């Protein structure tokens, strides 16, 4: 078959060349988001001193750990919407289902994240849970 020997001579290949020429706009703000993400990845969030040197854990790692723990341990009726390291603490934003005791649920989640982070990192981090919304269904 002709295309087996030289696919680029097939008339359909012109469309491939036009596809190559199509402009792909960079999403607005992507460069700034990248720079912020890299800055977060560079900042040390937790330092654990040891006898023969110390352990430094970046904000990115602490955020990922906290996100995984929060998703896994969130009590029934609590939905985690965001996790970030700000003001030297892990900030967890959640919404609660209507009817759930928000203060008890938030405190239970805060304790779970604090305990598990301390177990995994070897040092305690401050964790704040903020109830920012109510789910009606």
């Amino acid at each position: 078959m002709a295309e087996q020997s030289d696919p680029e001579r097939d008339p359909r290949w012109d469309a491939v060349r036009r596809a190559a020429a199509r402009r792909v706009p960079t999403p607005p703000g992507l460069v700034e988001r990248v720079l912020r993400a890299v800055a977060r990845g560079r900042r040390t969030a937790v330092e654990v001193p040891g006898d023969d040197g110390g352990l430094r854990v970046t904000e990115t790692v602490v955020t990922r750990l906290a996100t995984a723990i929060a998703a896994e341990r969130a009590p029934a009726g609590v939905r985690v919407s965001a996790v970030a390291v700000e003001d030297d603490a892990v900030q967890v934003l959640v919404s609660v289902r209507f009817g759930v005791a928000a203060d008890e649920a938030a405190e239970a989640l805060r304790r779970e994240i604090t305990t598990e982070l301390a177990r995994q990192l070897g040092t305690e981090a401050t964790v704040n849970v903020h109830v920012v919304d109510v789910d009606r269904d």
Partner: protein
Amino acid sequence: MSDDADLVAKAAAGDDAAFGVLVRRHTPRMYRVALRITGSAGEAEDVVQDSWLAAWRALPGFRRESAVSTWLYRVVTNSALALLRRRRPTVSLDEPTDRSTVDTALLAAAVPGPEGRVVRAEEVDAVLRAIGRLEVSQRVPLVLRELEGLSYEEVAEVLDVSVGALRSRLHRARVALLAELRER
């Protein structure tokens, strides 16, 4: 305008402004590659962020043996491939289910003016969708060579394969792409 290699050296020494210039200069093409490989704008953004984090960590080890742009193509390609490996199998709701039996290539050539341009735009969409349906091992070299315009040597370096192996892989990819386009 500063040379890329100089910017990398400065960034590795802690110059944030130099790193910022690199990010602004290369993010558009890295996003383009990530989008073509993953087929998803959201995932492409994640890939670009992961790539720059990886690039930043690797700055001190960068050697001038390869061009900075080739190195970054390699970083973003590897990040995109890692994302595809992590991705759970899903069925895209955006994927068109009906396949036109009209040969748009011939139609585009036959129809002049604005209508022809619309047909040609649809044709380009069809090509990009067809590339997205190819196996990853065929899609990636095709994106780098045909859409990004890298040389065989550069693509081989990005994918860490010999030029000979790349040429045969690309030939299979082109044949597969034409078969996809013919099926439309």
